[in-house]
């Protein structure tokens, strides 16, 4: 009996600890939510309460209809779709080549790619700027897409190569006997089997582009060309448009898609990442 009470006290303390930890963890998000839904604009006054007395969706409406939010969303989607498509189109065949063929320079290139991945692209940003400028690719989506694809191609190649390595080669040999060529092998056999890794790679690229702001603000001029990330960044920095309730509504609207995607593929993400990229 005594031991059971002791156990119970221990468990309650543990649960209490986790409740506090969880609250501390999401307090910035809850506060933002509360501000964005607050009808009476009393953040500045002392009477602010965490649970809004008057719930309103006006801030969300303002974001969706008055600010250039939808335009930024469209720009972001263009960049996301183009980057994901091109990255996968170049990284899948490359990952296949590095996984299945043994050729001169293979190990060296893989090694160089790891080292390149350690290099933060922010450090060569000015050089990129100067290279893209004479090509008229500054202030153009194509320029940004090329930068994003270059960065994510390394990740995609390594990540998917790691997964391709785990697919037994015997499956392909069976396909070859049936007369399939390389293209059919990849599209009909490897890609369906490697789906988890391809999905994780695609999602990582989506998240990367969705969250990238520093290249977007540096290379794009004019708010009408901004992505969501660049737009929010600018919205927050300019004094005269500083409106905290609207900003919080816009932030949450932008964060929610990523939050959902992330929580859905959370399990895949750890296994997908540790299977390829982390190793080696």
């Amino acid at each position, binding site marked *: 009996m005594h031991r059971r009470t002791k156990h119970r006290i221990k468990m309650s303390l*543990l649960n209490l*600890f*986790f409740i506090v*930890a*969880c609250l501390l*963890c999401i307090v*910035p998000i809850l*506060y*933002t939510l509360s501000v964005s839904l607050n009808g009476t604009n009393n*953040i500045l006054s*002392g009477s*602010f309460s965490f649970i809004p007395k008057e719930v309103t969706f006006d801030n969300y409406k303002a974001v969706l209809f008055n600010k250039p939010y939808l335009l930024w969303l469209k720009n972001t989607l263009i960049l996301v779709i183009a980057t994901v498509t091109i990255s996968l189109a*170049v*990284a899948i*065949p*490359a990952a296949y*080549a*590095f996984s*299945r063929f043994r*050729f001169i320079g293979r*190990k060296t*290139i893989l090694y160089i790619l*790891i*080292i*390149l991945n*350690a*290099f*933060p*692209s*922010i*450090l*060569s940003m*000015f*050089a990129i700027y*100067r*290279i893209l400028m004479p090509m008229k690719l500054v202030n153009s989506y194509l320029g940004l897409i*090329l930068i994003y694809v*270059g*960065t994510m*191609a390394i990740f995609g190649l390594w990540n998917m190569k790691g997964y391709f390595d785990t697919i037994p080669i015997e499956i392909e040999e069976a396909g070859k006997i049936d007369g399939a060529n390389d293209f059919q092998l990849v599209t009909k056999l490897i890609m369906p089997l490697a789906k988890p890794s391809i999905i994780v790679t695609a999602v990582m690229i989506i998240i990367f582009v969705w*969250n990238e702001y*520093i290249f977007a603000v540096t290379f794009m001029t004019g708010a009408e060309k901004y992505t969501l*990330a660049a737009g*929010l*960044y600018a919205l*927050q*920095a*300019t*004094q005269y448009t500083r409106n905290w309730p609207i*900003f919080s509504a816009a*932030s949450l609207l*932008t964060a929610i898609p*990523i*939050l959902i995607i*992330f*929580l859905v593929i*959370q399990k895949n993400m*750890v296994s997908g990442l540790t299977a390829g990229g982390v*190793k*080696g």
Partner: protein
Amino acid sequence: MKKRGYKKFIPYIYSFPGLALIGLMIVFPILYTGYISLTNMNVYHWFDFQVIGFQNYMKALFVLDTGFLTAFGRTIVWTIVNMVLQMIIAFVIASLLNVEGLRLKGLYKTILMFPWAMPGYISILLWKMGMFNTEFGLLNHWLNKLGFANVHWLNSNNIAFASSVMVNLWLALPFMIMIIDGALQSIDKAYYESATIEGAGYFSKARKITIPLLRPIIAPAVVITIFTTFKQFDIIYLLTQQQGSKTGADIHTIITYTYEKAFVTNNYGYSSAISIIIFMILIIFSLTIRGRLKGGDVDA
């Protein structure tokens, strides 16, 4: 014979588009950065710059008041402080999550993952506006309720540095908790049972069983986190240095320093030299670590 000759080129053909893009967008800019670092290119010498040799490197490494060495020291402190706190807190939380009989573990874990799932720059801006803001930030709101005066969280160096560490922990802990939690579950329970029989207490079990068994499993994730912490740009930049809303704190790390020299004070040659120095540090660091981790086996 001809067919075999063609076959030899297949992997090159398959990987060419990807490698070409990487070469164009990653490798070439790095090489070009190396070239710029040897010139006096700046906003006045946009086209008529000259090669000046290693002067920029000398300036960064041997002139004390340029700020580079300070920023470098701060980056080291930043990395160590963050990693130590992160490992301790993540270890404690992960082991508590694995206490037997904790029924709501799944729920707690999901909530604790939230900061990881949020877009990083949004979280940072929310911390800046929502938590740290002097007038309507939540932290000062709480302080006022407790009867304390407002604190300027981001305006002076030490407090701003501590605030940045706080945000970094908030952002980075979920990943580390997840990794340690996964590793803890992979440890065979039999070790603990026999240790309990032999009368080992909590701490001696942690020291003799958990930590040694954990180390090899979590090592790659820890190395990756050391790199990301060392290279962390967003937190310090967005909290204190964002164009148009600087707070006055001067807590440059080497990355934010490089960015400022390139895009704010427009000293391109000097900034490029620092880029190359950082790159060298990263290469040396990753070569040593990788050699120790896995014997440098790329083929894994």
